């Protein structure tokens, strides 16, 4: 019957799993520590988690072994490396936001940090595999932790957000598995590169089934990276969760989603099935445009940023449509630049967090709150203005370079109309970002009370803000280096 098989440890390539292992061990360690001693404080757990993350980051950067490991389940190629670095750096920065002035229930519980580490491990699994099972497991690990962390904010709105997110996530999981099933039924494989190969080899493949599979996959990943029409949950979830977590959600789940989308859809787009390409074209433009237009009418800054992050996701998604290695490098460049700017913007919101909703019954951060901020707290207003102009793509601030590079990639690949759409969309976007700047700088303040804007500020948060603003302003000085790093890794892994 079953014959004993011997596999050498060498072939398993365990170091390829070491980064994720560190986080899982770290998370378990935190849970055990909480069982043994009750004396762990917020700052202790934050620092401990950041230590684990940094350790992980070191291992990721230092890994130069074989790309394949664990029976070919794990694939640590260039884009996996870059995206892991983005995930880890972002996580470390956003975790620092836990060190706020006011007490929040979730940050005093050890479980929060354990879940945070599990979630990062999940995202890492998504990026380091092209096996649909492993991606699914990573996706669910991350999402389940995230739902719980949102609910731990312990406000009615947070519960509502968590349940909405959960429902959407469960539906997305259904779509994902259905898509995988269709691919499996079509090709007999659940490895992305194998799927692509077999589709090419097999001539009498049902195109309808292929398109159906693609649609399910777009639905599943679309929920994660909030592509129109699967974006409707985004603003509600952002509104319900704390600013720190909302900012985190605008970056990390999406980059993990982008990597999966890049692996999967670029393989599909290479098949030159007309329908798939057209569908993607429409999705990209719809995501950009709908995100931007809806953002125009928002009254709350956090919701505005939610819609703006949809628009940015659409912008970046065009890289996958274009599919050249220049565009793929542009995706990562854009997301790194966007990350620091969004980190800054959400940190400002987080700092101004107040116990009561002083300005609006429903919203915590309505536009009117920031009226005349330049007179009350000019420093904060100036920084926020930098972030807004950066998101709008005003040169020489950071996100402008990402836009420039991506539009240029579109032009170079012959997607002139797409490039024009991207440019026009950034022109629309200017309006709502500018709206906040106008509220801050050109209107008279409602009250002179300076303290209400810094109720949640601590030196740690200020340092995070300083890093973000420095990166936003001086991005042009080191883009050269970042881009060289990205291009090297992206071309190395064949994208």
């Amino acid at each position, binding site marked *: 019957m079953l014959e004993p098989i011997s596999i050498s440890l060498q072939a398993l390539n365990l170091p390829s799993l070491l980064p994720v292992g560190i986080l899982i061990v770290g998370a378990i360690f935190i849970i055990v520590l909480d069982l043994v001693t009750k004396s762990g404080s917020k700052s202790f757990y934050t620092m401990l988690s950041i230590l684990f993350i940094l350790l992980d980051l070191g291992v990721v950067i230092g890994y130069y072994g074989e790309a394949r490991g664990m029976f070919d389940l794990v694939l640590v190629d260039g884009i996996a490396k870059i995206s892991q670095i983005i995930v880890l750096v972002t996580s470390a920065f956003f975790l620092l936001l836990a060190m706020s002035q006011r007490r929040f229930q979730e940050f005093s519980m050890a479980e929060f940090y354990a879940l945070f580490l599990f979630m990062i491990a999940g995202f890492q699994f998504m990026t380091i595999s092209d096996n649909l099972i492993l991606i699914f497991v990573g996706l669910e690990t991350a999402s389940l932790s995230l739902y*719980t962390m949102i609910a731990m904010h312990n406000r009615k709105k947070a519960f509502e957000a968590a349940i909405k997110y959960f429902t959407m996530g469960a539906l997305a999981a*259904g779509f994902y598995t259905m898509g995988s099933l269709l691919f499996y039924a079509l090709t007999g494989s659940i490895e992305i590169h194998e799927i692509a190969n077999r589709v090419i080899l097999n001539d009498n493949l049902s195109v309808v089934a292929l398109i159906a599979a693609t649609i399910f996959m777009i639905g599943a990943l679309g929920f994660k990276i909030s592509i129109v029409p699967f974006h409707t949950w985004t603003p509600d979830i952002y509104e319900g969760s704390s600013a720190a977590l909302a900012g985190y959600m605008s970056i990390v789940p999406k980059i993990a989603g982008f990597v999966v989308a890049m692996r999967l859809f670029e393989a599909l787009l290479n098949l030159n099935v007309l329908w798939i390409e057209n569908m993607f074209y429409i999705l990209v433009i719809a995501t950009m445009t709908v995100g931007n237009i809806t953002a125009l009418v928002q009254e709350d800054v956090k919701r505005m940023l939610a819609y703006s992050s949809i628009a940015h996701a659409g912008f970046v998604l065009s890289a996958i449509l274009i599919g050249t290695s220049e565009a793929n490098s542009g995706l990562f460049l854009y997301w790194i630049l966007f990350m620091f700017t969004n980190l800054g913007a959400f940190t400002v919101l987080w700092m101004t967090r107040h116990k009561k909703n002083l300005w609006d019954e429903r919203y915590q951060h309505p536009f009117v709150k920031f009226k005349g901020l330049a007179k009350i707290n000019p420093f904060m207003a100036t920084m926020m203005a930098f972030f807004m102009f950066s998101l709008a793509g005003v040169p020489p601030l950071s996100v402008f370079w990402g836009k420039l590079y991506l539009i240029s990639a579109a032009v170079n690949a012959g997607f002139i109309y797409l490039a024009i759409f991207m440019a026009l969309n950034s022109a629309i976007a200017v309006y709502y970002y500018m709206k906040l700047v106008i509220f801050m700088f050109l209107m008279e303040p409602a009250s002179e009370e300076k303290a209400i804007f810094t109720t949640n500020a601590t030196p740690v948060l200020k340092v995070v803000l300083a890093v973000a603003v420095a990166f936003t302003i001086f991005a042009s000085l080191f883009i050269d280096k970042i881009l060289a790093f990205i291009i090297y890794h992206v071309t190395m892994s064949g994208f």
Partner: protein
Amino acid sequence: MIGLAHYLVLSGILFSIGLFGVMKRKNLLMLFFSTEILLNAVNIGFVAVGRFYGDMSGQIFAFFIIAVAASEVAVGLGLIVLWYKRTGSIDLDSLQMMKG
């Protein structure tokens, strides 16, 4: 003779039922059941296709889906309990603080 096609059709029908439930059901608990149906519909398909190709990965995938579905239920029910404690209702329409 029952072939692969029958299993796939069954899987498809179950999936449609699940999808319909997710769209139409107003009760949160029912909604979660529907998502379970979704996942289990896919399980049937995976096992059948795996058997058809004589390949293990379909069945492995099904096992993983079962595991994930179980943990999803754990988290989901936790959330419903929390919500019920807060509002005394598990109706979908009670989730409408945030709109627009």
